[in-house]
C-alpha cells in the first residue's frame, strides 16, 4: 500500500474546495483536504464574534500600524479591528504588481467564506452566451441548463433568502423567505417598474437562514439574527460559511483528512501513466516537504493561487506549467468593475423609519446589452440599491450644550439612498499572472506577478452607470444626487477570475466542460480560475455549483475507473 494515499486530494479549504470535499466524503471516498493556513473551527475560533461595539479598544478602527503595514488589505471594506485577523497581511505573502492590483486573501480553513459579502445570484443563459455572442474570450462549454440543477442542489444546502422574481436575466432559485423590504426600497422598485420595461429592482438574494429546515438543523445552524457583523464569524451559523457547514459535514463521514498549514508546492505528474499522481506539500511551519497521492486532484486554492500552483507544476511533459500546452495558463484574468457609486437623499417618507437590521439590500440585475448589443461598450453591469433613514446629531459647540445636543439626536425623516455598480470586465490575454524568475517566498515557491488593469470598455461602462442611475434616481425624485468614481484598484472587488479557463477547444482553453484539464483528466479546477468570463453576478454561488457538479462527475469517473 502506498503511504499518504487517498482517493481524492482537494487543494484549498474555501468554498470550492469545501464543496468538492463534501461530495467526495459523502459518497465514501477518502479525501485529503489541504489548506495553507491554520484551522478555523466554527464558533471556537471566532474571537470577536460576541464583542459589543464599545468593547473594541479602537471602536472598530484600524491602527496606524495596521494601515502602514497593510496598505493593500486595509483597502478592503471588511479589514477592520473586528475581523482583520482573518485576512492575509501584506508583508506575510508578497506578490508582484506589474500594475496595481489589490489581492485580498484569507488563508485559513474556510478561506474568504468567513468574511464574504454573502450575495448569491445565479447566472442566466445570457451570461453564459456572452463571449460567443460578443466575440470575446472563448465560448463557454456549458450553459445555464447544465448548471441549474446544481444551483438548486447548492442553494438547498447553503440556504438562500430570496424572492421569486420571474426574471430571465436572473433565474429564480430554491429560496427561503426574504427579509422585509423597507418603504423606500419598495417605492424605488415601483418607480423603476413604472418607467422602464427592462429594469428591475429586486430583493438582494443572500446566503442567510430565514427559515428552519431539517437540513440546516442537521448542520447545527440557526436563524440569522440580523447582527450584520458576519465578517467575524457567526455563532448561530446564520449565514453560510464553509466552517459551519461543509467541513463539519465532511468530517462527520469519517472520510475527511483535513490538513491545515499545508502549502501546496506543485502537482506531481507520472509520464508513464499520463496522469497526475499527487501533490507536493510544504508544512507552513516546519518547511518540511511531503508528497501525497490520490487518483483525482481538485485544485481549488482560490483563483490566483490555483494559477500559481499550476504554473509552478513543471515536468518534462508540462515544462511551462501543468496542462499548459497552449501557453494560455495564467492569461485572460478578469474581475468586476466596482468603481462607480451614486448617492442621494429622498424626502418622500418623512414619517417612517426602520427597526432592526437585515443582512442584505436590493439589487438591480444587468439591463445593458442583454438581448443585443446596444451601447458603445460590451456587456453590462448590475447594481445594488440601499435606503436607510438619516439621523441628525448636532455636534457643534462645547460643554453641557454639546451634551444636550447629543441627547437630542433624532431621525430627520430624510432617507439616504445609494447604489454601487458591479460591471463585467472583458477577459484579455494581456491581463495575466506569471511566476517571477527570481523571487521566491519562504517556502521556496516563486512569487506571483500580477499584470491586470482596466481598459476603455470599463471607462465607458462607468460613464453609462453614472448616466443611467442619475436618470433613474431623478425619475424617483431623489435629490442631492452625487456620483463618485472611487478609482478602486482591480482586485479590490475580490472577484478575480480566470487564467485556467473552460472551453471547448484545447487549443484555446485549459479545461473541458467538466472542469478537467484537457491534457490531464484527473486534475480538476473548479474555483474562480476556471471562469471563461465574469458576467456581473457575485460569483461564489456559481463556483460552488460548478464544484459540486465537477466533483460528482469525478465520482462517477472514479467509480468507472476512468481516472
Amino acid at each position, binding site marked *: 500500500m502506498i503511504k499518504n494515499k487517498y482517493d481524492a486530494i482537494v487543494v484549498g479549504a474555501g468554498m470550492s474546495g469545501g464543496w468538492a470535499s463534501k461530495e467526495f466524503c459523502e459518497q465514501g471516498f477518502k479525501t485529503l483536504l489541504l489548506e495553507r493556513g491554520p484551522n478555523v473551527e466554527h464558533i471556537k475560533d471566532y474571537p470577536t464574534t460576541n464583542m459589543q461595539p464599545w468593547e473594541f479598544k479602537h471602536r472598530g*478602527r484600524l491602527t496606524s500600524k495596521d*494601515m502602514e503595514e497593510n496598505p493593500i488589505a486595509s483597502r478592503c471594506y471588511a479589514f477592520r479591528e473586528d475581523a482583520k485577523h482573518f485576512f492575509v497581511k501584506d508583508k506575510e505573502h508578497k506578490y508582484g504588481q506589474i500594475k496595481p492590483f489589490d489581492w485580498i486573501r484569507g488563508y485559513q480553513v474556510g478561506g474568504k467564506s468567513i468574511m464574504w459579502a454573502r450575495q448569491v445570484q445565479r447566472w442566466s443563459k445570457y451570461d453564459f452566451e456572452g463571449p460567443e455572442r460578443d466575440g470575446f474570450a472563448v465560448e463557454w462549454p456549458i450553459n445555464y441548463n447544465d448548471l441549474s440543477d446544481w444551483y438548486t442542489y447548492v442553494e438547498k444546502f447553503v440556504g438562500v433568502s430570496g424572492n421569486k422574481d420571474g426574471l430571465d436575466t436572473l433565474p429564480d432559485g430554491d429560496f427561503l423567505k426574504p*427579509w422585509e423590504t423597507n418603504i423606500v426600497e419598495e417605492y424605488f422598485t415601483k418607480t423603476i417598474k413604472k418607467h422602464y420595461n427592462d429594469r428591475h429592482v429586486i430583493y438582494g438574494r443572500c446566503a442567510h437562514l430565514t427559515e428552519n429546515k431539517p437540513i440546516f438543523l442537521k448542520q447545527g445552524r440557526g436563524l440569522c439574527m440580523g447582527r450584520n457583523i458576519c465578517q467575524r464569524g457567526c455563532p448561530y451559523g446564520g449565514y453560510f460559511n464553509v466552517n459551519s457547514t461543509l467541513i463539519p459535514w465532511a468530517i462527520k463521514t469519517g472520510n475527511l483528512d483535513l490538513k491545515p498549514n499545508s502549502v501546496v508546492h506543485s502537482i506531481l505528474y507520472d509520464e508513464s501513466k499520463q496522469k497526475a499522481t499527487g501533490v507536493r506539500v510544504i508544512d507552513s511551519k516546519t518547511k518540511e516537504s511531503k508528497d501525497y497521492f490520490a487518483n483525482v486532484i481538485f485544485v481549488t486554492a482560490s483563483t490566483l493561487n490555483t494559477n500559481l500552483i499550476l504554473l509552478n507544476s513543471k515536468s518534462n511533459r508540462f515544462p511551462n506549467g501543468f496542462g499548459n500546452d497552449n501557453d494560455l495558463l495564467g492569461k485572460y484574468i478578469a474581475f468586476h468593475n466596482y468603481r462607480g457609486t451614486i448617492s442621494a437623499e429622498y424626502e418622500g417618507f418623512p414619517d417612517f423609519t426602520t427597526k432592526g437590521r437585515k443582512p442584505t439590500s436590493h439589487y438591480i440585475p444587468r439591463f445593458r446589452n442583454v438581448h443585443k448589443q446596444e451601447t458603445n461598450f460590451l456587456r453590462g453591469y448590475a447594481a445594488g440599491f440601499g435606503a436607510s433613514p438619516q439621523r441628525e446629531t448636532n455636534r457643534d459647540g462645547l460643554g453641557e450644550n454639546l451634551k444636550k445636543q*447629543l441627547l437630542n439626536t433624532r431621525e430627520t425623516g430624510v432617507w439616504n439612498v445609494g447604489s454601487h455598480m458591479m460591471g463585467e470586465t472583458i477577459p484579455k490575454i494581456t491581463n495575466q499572472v506569471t511566476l517571477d524568475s527570481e523571487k521566491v517566498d519562504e517556502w521556496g515557491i516563486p512569487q506571483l506577478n500580477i499584470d491586470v488593469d482596466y481598459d476603455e470598455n470599463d471607462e465607458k461602462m462607468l460613464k453609462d452607470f453614472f448616466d443611467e442611475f442619475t436618470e433613474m434616481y431623478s425619475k424617483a425624485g431623489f435629490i442631492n444626487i452625487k456620483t463618485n468614481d472611487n478609482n478602486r484598484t482591480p482586485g479590490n472587488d475580490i472577484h478575480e477570475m480566470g487564467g485556467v479557463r473552460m472551453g471547448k477547444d484545447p487549443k484555446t482553453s485549459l479545461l473541458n466542460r467538466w472542469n478537467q484539464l484537457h491534457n490531464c483528466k484527473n486534475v480538476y479546477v473548479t474555483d474562480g480560475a476556471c471562469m471563461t468570463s465574469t458576467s456581473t453576478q457575485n460569483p461564489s454561488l456559481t463556483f460552488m455549483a460548478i464544484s459540486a457538479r465537477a466533483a460528482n462527475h469525478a465520482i462517477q469517473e472514479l467509480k468507472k475507473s476512468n481516472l
Partner: protein
Amino acid sequence: MNRRIALKHVGLITAGLVITPYGCNIEPEVIYSNLPMIKKSQQQTIGYLSNIILPEDAINFPTMESRQEFILTMVNDCYGTSKIKRFSKGFEMISTELKDIEFGKFSLNEQISFIDKSYLSKNPSSFFIETLKKHSLLHFESSENYMIDYLNFEFIPGRYLGSVSI
C-alpha cells in the same frame, strides 16, 4: 571566573532594587509609546480639557475606559507620524498657555471660551482641540447606554421592520 561575575551581577541588581524605591518612581513616565513628550503627570490635562469640551458622565454613560485613556490610546495607536507631531505641538502650546493663565481659576464659561478660541485659531492648538473633541464625541457616542438608549442599537435584533412610524 564566570561564577564570580554572576555573583557580582546579582549583588548589583539586589542593591539596585533596594535603592530604587527611594531614588525614583518605578512607574514608567511614558505610558503611550508614540507620545513620549506627554508625561504621565501631564496626561490629566487631556482628561481635564476633554471634560470641559464634553462633560463625562460616568454614572449615566459608563465606559470601559476613562475619556483620557481613550483619547490617548486613539491618538497613540491610530494617528500617523505627522498627525502625532501636530497633536503634540498643539499640546505643548496649550500646556504653556495654561501655565501662564492659571486656567483652573477660570469660570467654566471662561474655560469654554478659551478652548473655543484655541479651536478657532490657526495655530497647532486648533488641531489638538479638534482631536480632543473628535475622540470625546466618539467615546461618548459609542458608550453602551448612549448607543442603546439614544441610537436604538440592538446587538441581536433578530428582525427587520421596513416601515415603522416615527
